[in-house]
């Protein structure tokens, strides 16, 4: 199997802080891959580098045999990488269906003024968008302002509008963070379904170990901006370096809360 998404020796420093120090990750086509690591280990920064929000100081990002290092976010999205954010990013003053349409029309290439300014030039995306809203279970809110959705519903909306543009790889930044257990199960279920039925590839950052270990076929552990180990979940869980660096607890123990660390409420991007 070839890696669909791959990074090589990514370096990124903010002032004196080396956020990424040679991070390497490989995501094979048709798999669900996990990225874990303690707070500040560079997971979100790596996501930002892959999706073009941050420019790496060194290293390269490869997608399907093509180098996409330093591409702008809209181009990264156009080549087929969609992502969600740790704290959901939606358009609060657009309706839910309009949120979907922003993403749906991104791949259109309007050739003339009518396609840019005409009303019906893009509404044909509406049907597909409604189907996806149904898939994540929020179609009843299609005409509500997205800002009035609950946090969990926003997570679902984010997932839906990333899907609407039909990306080959979907990067999920803490899909289960701050979400109630029922919804966590539903999100896991949807990811499994998309992966099994459509062969969609996922890479997810998550602190909920149960969630990660249950979903991912390959887990990469990041520490201080460098890859510590990468492999199937059962091997990663027993790797001594990982236990030292990150886990520090035996997952077989009947821990009531397998969430390993408290994520600060604010966004890492802002906290830098």
């Amino acid at each position, binding site marked *: 199997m070839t890696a669909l998404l791959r990074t090589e020796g990514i370096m990124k420093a903010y002032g004196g802080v080396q956020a990424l120090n040679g991070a390497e990750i490989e995501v094979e086509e*048709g798999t669900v891959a996990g990225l874990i690591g303690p707070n500040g280990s560079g997971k979100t920064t790596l996501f930002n580098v892959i*999706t073009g*929000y941050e420019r790496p100081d060194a290293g390269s990002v490869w997608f399907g045999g093509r180098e996409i290092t330093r591409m702008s*976010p*809209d181009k*990264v*999205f*156009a080549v087929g990488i*969609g992502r969600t*954010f740790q704290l959901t*990013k*939606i*358009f*609060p*003053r*657009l309706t839910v269906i*309009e949120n979907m*349409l*922003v*993403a749906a*029309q*991104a*791949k*259109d290439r*309007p050739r003339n003024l009518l*396609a*840019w*300014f*005409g*009303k019906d*030039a*893009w509404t044909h995306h509406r*049907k*597909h968008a409604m*189907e*996806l809203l*149904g*898939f994540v*279970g929020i179609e009843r*809110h299609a005409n*509500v302002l997205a800002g009035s959705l609950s946090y*969990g*519903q926003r997570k679902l909306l984010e997932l839906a*509008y*990333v*899907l609407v*543009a*039909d990306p*080959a790889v979907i990067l999920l930044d803490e899909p289960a963070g701050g979400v109630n257990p*029922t*919804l966590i*199960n*539903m999100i896991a*279920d949807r990811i499994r*379904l*998309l992966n099994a*039925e*459509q*062969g*969609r590839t996922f890479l997810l950052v998550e602190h909920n170990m149960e969630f990660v270990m249950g979903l991912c076929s390959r887990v990469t552990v990041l520490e201080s901006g460098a890859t510590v180990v990468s492999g199937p979940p059962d091997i990663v869980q027993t790797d001594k370096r990982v236990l030292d660096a990150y886990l520090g607890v035996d997952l077989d123990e009947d821990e009531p809360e397998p969430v390993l660390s408290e994520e600060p409420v604010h966004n890492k991007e802002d906290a830098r």
Partner: protein
Amino acid sequence: MNERNRTFAKGGGLVVLLVLAVLFPQVFTNPSVTSYGVLALIFATAAVAWHIFSGNSGYISLGQAVFYGSGAYTMGIAARDWNLQGTSVFELIPLCGAVGAAIAVPFGLIALRVRRHTFIVVTIAIFFIFQLMAFNLWFTGGSSGLASPFLTWAPVPFNQNFYYIALACAVGSIVVAWLIGRSRFGLQLRAIRDDEDRARGLGVKTMRVKLGAFAISGAITAIIGAIWFYFITQVQPQTGFNPLFDLTLVLMVFLGGFGSISGAVLGAVIIEPLTSWMSTVPALSGSVSTIIIGAILLLVVLFMPRGIIPTSSELITKLRMRGRPAVVPTTTIEPVSTGSDPSAPTTSIGSGGAR
């Protein structure tokens, strides 16, 4: 009222407003009254142009006077250098629009790299650069400015003609703003307003979209600036590139309702005649009128911070809904099977398939 009736009522209302606007100078023929109308329409056009960019994208531009003044100066310089007289000057209007759009591109490429307060400050800085250029460049006429080519219209048709020209501009800009609002382009602009980074991550070419809206806004503002210049027959650096111009626009839009076309028009139609009228009343002229306008702004911010149109439409909805049961959105999360149960709800999801 169902959807169709509502559209019908809305369209009917607009037709009535348009007929009233067309009849206005026929009923009030006094030039001092019609000039209120002309200036109100000029400002309505400028406010709608401001709305096209700032109202949709959320980038508050305080540099619209750059386009307004540039339009006026383009008209004046071209008419002077090419010896144009009489109504043939109106053939320059497309040129003025093109100059406005052409200025918007480098202006936007610099200013649109930054957001929020920084953007506002950069637009003000660029505005002052243009004002200084109008004072100092060799072809602008310096501090005495330019005079417009002589028009041989008598006072009454003069104002009436300008009234209809300004009305055409206002209607035109409203149509453009409406087309943009319902289009893909408008949706992308509003997505940028809500979360620009997210929009970029969903494939929106944000710079191109912002620049496009800025150029359209600049072109319309330059055209109306040229017409304003021809109407008042002269322009100086401090009137063409007037720092109060942008503040007035913002006040108009915030009074009428930020983010809506009707808000921009309503604000202009209230504020501009009010200020013109106050300047003719000795007791209110000068700083008193400024105090009154400031007081109006404070009252608006206190009692309807979102402006007249959104606040009153909310009020109407509330009155209409009185006595009816409130609509409570139902909870949505369907029961979901845990684990990898293959019988989980499998709504087919359109395109995709294995890759």
